[in-house]
């Protein structure tokens, strides 16, 4: 069982290499936590001074994530000057008189819209005609992180596995051990499969840890099946692994391997669905593996889709892995024909 021996050796090497182990297991959690804190607090609280307004107006403001505080005219002006509030409003006879601090356009705009809507709600709305909103996918006040989270899990696994497997195979080539290996009766495909199996087993652990951390510690919105998430991340790791090995054959040293990050990894992030892109450009994403990973993860985590709905994505991811493995086996021909 040469494949097993090779897989076991890779696990052994990882076990001895604490740094890489930490990079693969702890660094993703660290990154995810950072992004979580950056994106979690989505709505900053904006204060508005309410001088004159119908009853219930503040409650309506609150609905729009704006906090209204009652002031008299003089105090309101002072609060505005101090920056305690961003605007003051006085509604007299259905007409709003607003003074606003426009130095932060985003907040000012949010405040204006909210104040206008709150007024309409209080003065003119009939409760029985209030729109009924059902969230088909996602939920009310879905933090940005939840939206990103699914894609992020895929990306992080892809990135780390790509890098570590690529460099590992590169070292095999550069240290002469690949040559030594090729002086043994091992077959070319056994080398490739051994690598996939060795790193694959390790990425089971990594995928589990990352997915578990996101779902149960960061509490990313997740209504699908955890087993499916594991399946997707595993296939993603396999794809990253085979692509990493493939790319490493184009690199002569570790530095050149790092150079593939802006070429191979970064563009995939742009097209993975994190950004809204013009339709014409969006199609480029269809040739990027990460697009399918992100799509499958989003389907399961936010839409609760089952296996049938992500089968297409998984099929493409798997097909790419098999393609890359075949290419790797063929490329090893450069070293030995048989």
């Amino acid at each position, binding site marked *: *069982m*040469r494949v*097993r*021996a*090779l897989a*076991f*050796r890779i696990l*052994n*090497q990882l076990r*001895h*290499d604490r740094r890489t182990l930490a990079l693969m297991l702890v660094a993703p959690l660290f990154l995810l936590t950072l992004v979580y804190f950056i994106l979690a607090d989505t709505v900053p609280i904006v204060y508005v001074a309410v001088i004159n307004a119908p009853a219930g107006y503040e409650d309506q403001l609150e609905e729009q994530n704006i906090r209204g505080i009652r002031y008299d005219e003089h105090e309101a002006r002072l609060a505005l000057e101090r920056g305690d509030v961003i605007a003051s409003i006085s509604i007299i006879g259905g007409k709003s008189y607003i003074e606003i601090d426009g130095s932060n356009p985003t907040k000012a705009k949010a405040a204006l819209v909210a104040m206008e809507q709150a007024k309409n709600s209080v003065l003119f709305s009939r409760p029985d005609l209030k729109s009924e909103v059902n969230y088909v996918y996602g939920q009310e006040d879905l933090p940005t992180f939840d939206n990103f989270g699914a894609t992020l899990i895929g990306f992080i696994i892809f990135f780390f596995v790509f890098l570590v497997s690529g460099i590992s195979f590169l070292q095999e080539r550069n*240290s*002469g*051990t690949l*040559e*030594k*290996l*090729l*002086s*043994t*009766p*091992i*077959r070319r495909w056994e080398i490739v499969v051994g690598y996939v199996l060795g790193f694959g087993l390790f990425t089971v652990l990594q995928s589990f840890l990352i997915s578990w951390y996101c779902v149960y510690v960061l509490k990313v919105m997740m209504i699908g099946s955890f087993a499916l998430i594991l399946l997707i991340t595993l296939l993603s790791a396999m794809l990253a692994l085979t692509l990493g090995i493939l790319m490493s054959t184009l690199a002569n040293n570790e530095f050149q391997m790092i150079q593939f990050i802006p070429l191979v990894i970064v563009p995939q992030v742009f097209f993975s669905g994190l950004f809204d892109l013009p339709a014409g450009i969006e199609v480029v994403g269809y040739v990027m593996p990460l697009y399918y990973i992100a799509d499958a993860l989003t389907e399961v985590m936010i839409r609760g889709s089952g296996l049938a709905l992500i089968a297409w994505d998984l099929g493409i991811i798997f097909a790419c892995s098999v393609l890359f493995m075949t290419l790797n086996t063929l490329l090893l021909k450069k*070293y*030995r*024909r*048989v």
Partner: protein
Amino acid sequence: MFKGLISPEKAHHNGSSSGVDSNYGIVVRNVHKYFGAKHVLKDINLEIPFGQIYGLLGPSGCGKTTMVKIIAGILEATSGKAYVLGEAMPQLSLMNKVGYMAQSDALYGSLTAAENLQFFGAIYGMNKAEIKRRTAEVMELVNLSDDLDKPVQAYSGGMKRRLSLAMAILHNPPVLVLDEPTVGIDPLLRKNIWAELYKLAAQGVTILVTTHVMDEAEKCHQLAMMRAGRLIAKGTSQELQKNIGVRSIEEAFLYYGGQQDES
């Protein structure tokens, strides 16, 4: 121009060998090798009888390592063939029968010596008990028994060289291809290693050794001298010395090496 001569020293052969060259462990026939436009091996012919230690001597860059890799099945000749145990290389079934030691130490630095040996043993299809027994034997031989569980990256250069040798002979191959095996190994241990090589040869193992160290060349049963991709002389060290009237192989080397490249 001096014609190299081969002493058809009767070799006791061991094991079964098919094909035409049944007296020889290694045969090289009309091998040419090009790297792009560069002609690095020019019409090499070699016959190494079973149970002989055959030295390949030459300055660095003369094509020794390329020659050795073709015999070990890692490279292929552009034209011509290398035969091991009567069969053409490269061939997977033959790979098990060759022990190859590269010029650079092909070791996994983060693994311990025992793990390195265990890995290659498993690749060679040895079972656990066999690997354990042979590991103890070969590590004793290269005097590394006490460092079995040290990670290889903590080894000195000489220790790595010895471990590489241990790995090459781990699976008891009938043919050994050793590329500069004793570089960086101290004289006493080098003597032990040569004693072991003689012992293996006496058991019928065919051994090809490259070297540019003169006193090692003299220890080989037969020698071939290489220069600029060509074999310029073959024979025992005495024959090579006698033919040109010098007293040491070093002088012979200088004599042949100093001649004009005829290509």
